[in-house]
């Protein structure tokens, strides 16, 4: 008897279960996700990042920053990301699916050779520091193993008597008569970094202290149509209530 077709069909179904389970079903669950209105501010979260931050995301992707940096704060009690101060929601609560709605691509990262960058925009909101760090990480963090990204900068010759421009980097070892200025890519990358924050108090991330009272005052669903109670920490996005 020719078993070939039978083996083929059986295998196909066996393997396709994981496709159903991890591709189809999560997509059906997650595709309903929408930005939610944050009560305190009335703004949508997450907001679609500006054009310049989007371009910076491309630079981040093209240069593979995510092979060394994660963008994901793990839940309290699982690792100590929160204790390290990487969290954004008052430094207390982990990342949730909602935070990544506009990330393209989603770069969770798989390594922490460098610190987590989920909330770097909150932690180091200083563009000058960021640029200097990119140009020469060791100049701001001695012994850093982060590679320098000097190719995102330009060494420009100054005309006689010309002053360095406003955006020139304040770094050592610049030969006299020259200045170091960021290229477009460096500027957009920094805009992206400064825009990295997941700080909104969401339905699935109630503030840790006096949770119930605070939760109902900060993240009551916008449309008010939900019967869900605020669930505990790591719950799925299905509990989010879309904005009107």
């Amino acid at each position: 008897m020719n078993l070939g077709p039978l083996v083929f069909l059986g295998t196909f179904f066996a393997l396709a279960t994981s496709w159903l389970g991890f591709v189809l079903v999560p997509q059906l669950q997650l595709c309903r996700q929408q930005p939610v209105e944050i009560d305190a501010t009335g703004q949508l979260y997450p907001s679609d990042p500006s054009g310049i931050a989007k371009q910076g995301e491309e630079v981040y992707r093209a240069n593979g920053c995510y092979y060394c940096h994660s963008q994901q704060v793990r839940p309290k009690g699982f690792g100590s990301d929160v204790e390290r101060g990487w969290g954004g929601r008052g430094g207390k609560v982990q990342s949730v699916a909602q935070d990544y709605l506009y990330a393209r691509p989603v770069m969770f990262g798989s390594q922490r050779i460098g610190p987590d960058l989920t909330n770097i925009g909150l932690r180091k909101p200083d563009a000058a520091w960021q640029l200097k760090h990119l140009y020469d990480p060791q100049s701001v963090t001695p012994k850093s193993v982060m590679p320098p990204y000097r190719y995102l900068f330009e060494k420009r010759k100054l005309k006689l008597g010309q002053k360095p421009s406003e955006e020139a980097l304040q770094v050592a070892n610049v030969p006299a008569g020259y200045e170091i200025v960021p290229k477009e890519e460096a500027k957009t990358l920094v805009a992206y970094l400064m825009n990295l924050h997941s700080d909104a108090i969401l339905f699935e991330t109630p503030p840790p202290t006096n949770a119930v009272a605070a939760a109902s005052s900060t993240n009551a669903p916008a449309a008010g149509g939900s019967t869900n109670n605020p669930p505990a920490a790591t719950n799925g996005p299905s509990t989010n209530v879309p904005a009107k």
Partner: protein
Amino acid sequence: MSATPSTQIISIDRGNEAPAVTSVQIDASCRAPVLLLFISAAAWLLIGSLLGIIASLKFHSPNILASCPLLTYGRVHPAAWNALIYGFAIQAGLGVGLWVLSHLGRAKLAMAPLIVIGAILWNLGMTIGTYGILYGDSTGFEWLEMPRYASGILFFAYLAIGLAAIVTLHLRRERELYISQWLLLAAIFWLPWIYSTAQLLLVFKPVRGVMQAIIDWWYINNLTTIWLGFTGLAATFYFIPKIINRPLYSHYIGIFIFWTLAIFGSWGGIPTGSPLPTWIPALSSVGAALTIVPVLAVAFNVHKTFVGNYSKLSSSMPLKFIAFGALAYVLSGLVGVLASIVQVSEVINFTWFTPAQTQFVVYGFFAMTMFGAIYYIVPRLLQADISSAGVRWHFWLALIGVLIYVVSLGVGGVEQGTVLNNPKATADFMGVTNSTLPFLRASTTGDLFIALGHLVFLLNLVGVLVRVSRASFSTAMVANRRAEVRA
């Protein structure tokens, strides 16, 4: 289906009943396409390890080659990895798979020209894809970095080779299916499915948000556990019995492994603690934990096949490679099961442990098995021996290299995770990085051994090829001269 275990196919292969097609004829039909796949695989392996060394050197001094955007860590590292997976592993696996399929089916390799075209296309796609990554066109998804203009080529190249494999299987003269054929058939079909799903939903028409990460994890896990696992095990179950000249202990355990791996194995890969609906990582760890069943079954079946014949290890280099591969499969499988436990994954999440574990599977198991198979196949294809000193050098370099690499990064990863999770002791992040540096630097030594091994591997293959073509060239010359003299 008859109940006789088809393991016997292997042992009667030497011609009790005169087969319609002889082994020599089958080898002749395999020669060009399979050799092409092997040589290209070896070349990518070397390219990959050179890129890998560049990446690794960055941890000795981040300023090395820092002003060249093409060689920045975030580009050479994925380029090296893609060369290993797509350049080497898939091509070697396909080459070995085609040869095994045609021998088990006792039929000539079908559509050899199509395979050659497929292999050329694949290498074209690889070249374009590698440049794409180095030039900054990476898609941003791990293991799927090659940009769309390369992945399309790869996809069709694979279809061409896969089609030839299916047709070869279909035209087999020996109707009984051996376990290796099950495994190969499943692997051959599964890759286009996962690859097209991933490409479609991540690159061509991207889904939103965390769904992207889920699909990428699903893809990586299926490529490793199913494609590499099935193809590698097909070789394990074919060559070990063949070389020690004794049937596989149990065909039925083989089938059991096949189903349990297909059902549990494809679910793993999604780390605990990810920002996803909780059921997803939870289900995934259950799948990963259950793979302990097929892993132990492999250990049992291989051991039982070997028992009393372990001494044959010393007389066959291919067997050494493949037996080491099987050992690595079992050990890395057990480590993978361990890693699915929450308390363990809490420590190793985001550390060097993960690459060490992956390397253990991809290199320790898969690549070593393929090396053994290639060293078994090539002398038959060319009717000439490969320098045995060369093979021995390759074995020891690869063995030592992979052990240094896996052990140093594995231990380093546990250390890193422990320090990372203890912010009271090392509040400063540089302390975490520094704790891993000695291990990272040790792993570079492993990289160097491995790379040297790859050089030897390529030289071994090219060496025998050159010798054979010289010999046939001179016989042709002699024949020519004789003809001239006569005329």
